[in-house]
């Protein structure tokens, strides 16, 4: 399997075009990722021969910092872009502005591959790493699609305040909690855009459900499965089968080829919504735990924070001095004492003490992964000097 290492969005798009047109399978890896501990390269000799052609693989560090590889079939992914094109009414879209790393399956499939299959312009942008250039790219947007992750919205509000970008007509979110509470602000910034919540996971490569922003008032509602996609909930854990999903994965535990009948875990807690058609998420499976006998969901804690705090925020798992797991919160920019007390007052109103954060840290800007999501591994190791409040426990 040929290795293509990302070097920059514009160069990457050209490399991918050439690689996609060549039958040999390839793996597309981030620019600075170490190959030493990448599981694909330890297991490469054992990959089935049928994967040596017409497939591709993406390697991401993920929020856990552990490298993970998903292997997809090119024809299946092309089919997914056609389904998304119909469901998201993308016929009027002339171009896609890519402000996320292309090694991220969301940008790779929803943007680069969609543009290739549909014959649309693919326009790379440095995104929020260069706000002035990003602003110019958005001003120049011509019937454009833009894909973001929810945690970027507060930065956009601070960096692109008072801007309006009518050239963006489709705005997609994925990769975390949907910014339902920011819709007013998004509608102001993107007055012509139809906004979508996209849900999926790396193994789905990457989409399972979509919904229009206005179809629900609940950030946890992810809409209905795409045609051909099946979801089921087993004791709360969400599983899927998809004709578009990955055909294999390579993780720390080795190579795994998916059977067509196999139900694959998304890593989320979810259940069907009351309308019988859409689905509700309750968080990631590793984000739900017991604390002093109470069930804690970081997703729920995150919702309380996001409803209140206009800046960046992240919620992560930590452990107290008794060995009990707990949630903790990081905020940026650093809140004033009154702001922090007001946030804590919200926790008092909405949650019992077990749900309260163990501590709150504040800093100028939260560390981020290349895909714009908060870097939870770095955030969890932030020093005591940034702690603004903590429970005495």
């Amino acid at each position: 399997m040929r290795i293509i290492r990302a070097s920059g969005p514009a160069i990457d798009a050209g490399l991918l075009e050439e690689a996609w047109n060549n039958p040999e399978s390839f793996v597309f890896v981030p620019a600075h990722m170490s190959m030493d501990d990448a599981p694909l390269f330890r297991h490469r000799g054992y990959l089935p021969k049928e994967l040596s052609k017409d497939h591709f693989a993406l390697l991401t560090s993920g929020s856990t910092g552990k490298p993970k590889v998903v292997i997809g079939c090119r024809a299946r992914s092309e089919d997914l872009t056609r389904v998304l094109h119909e469901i998201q009414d993308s016929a009027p879209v002339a171009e896609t502005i890519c402000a996320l790393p292309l090694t991220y399956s969301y940008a790779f499939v929803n943007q680069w591959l969609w543009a290739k299959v549909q014959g649309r312009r693919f326009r790379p942008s440095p995104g929020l790493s260069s706000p002035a250039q990003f602003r110019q790219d958005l001003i120049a947007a011509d019937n454009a699609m833009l894909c973001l992750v929810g945690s970027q919205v507060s930065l956009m509000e601070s960096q692109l305040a008072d801007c309006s970008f009518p050239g963006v007509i489709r705005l997609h979110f994925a990769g975390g909690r949907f910014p339902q509470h920011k819709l007013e602000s998004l509608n102001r910034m993107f007055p012509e855009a139809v906004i979508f919540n996209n849900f999926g996971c790396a193994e789905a490569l990457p989409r399972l459900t979509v919904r229009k922003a206005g179809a629900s008032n609940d950030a946890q509602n992810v809409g209905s499965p795409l045609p051909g996609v099946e979801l089921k909930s087993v004791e709360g854990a969400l599983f899927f089968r998809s004709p578009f999903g990955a055909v294999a994965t390579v993780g720390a535990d080795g190579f795994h080829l998916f059977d067509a009948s196999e139900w694959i875990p998304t890593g989320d807690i979810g259940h069907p919504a009351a309308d019988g058609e859409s689905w509700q998420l309750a968080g990631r499976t590793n984000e739900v735990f017991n604390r002093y006998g109470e069930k804690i969901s970081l997703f729920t804690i995150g919702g309380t924070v996001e409803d209140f705090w206009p800046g960046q925020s992240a919620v992560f798992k930590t452990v107290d001095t008794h060995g009990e797991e707990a949630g903790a919160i990081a905020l940026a920019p650093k809140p004033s004492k009154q702001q922090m007390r007001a946030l804590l007052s919200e926790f008092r109103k909405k949650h019992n003490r077990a749900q309260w954060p163990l501590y709150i840290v504040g800093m100028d800007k939260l560390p981020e992964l290349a895909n714009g999501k908060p870097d939870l591994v770095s955030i969890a190791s932030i020093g005591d000097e940034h702690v603004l409040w903590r429970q005495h426990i």
Partner: protein
Amino acid sequence: MENREKLKELMLDILLIDEDEFSFELKREDVETWDSLGVVSVAVGIQDTFGYHPSTDEATALDSVDKIIELLESNGIQFEQ
């Protein structure tokens, strides 16, 4: 910071109450967040803030701000009037 002010800040932080809800006459029954975990938090908070470690019996008997001051004063920590 004077000890009365330190104690007030500590109780605001532990019980998540607003300043106008706090008084030095505050009792456990007045605020729903002074629950069983709140009792533990008060005891740990006293140790963290004033360096005095209440015994289990002392901690469970602390059901008002008055009693916290009484306990700390009886252990040599003075509270200005």
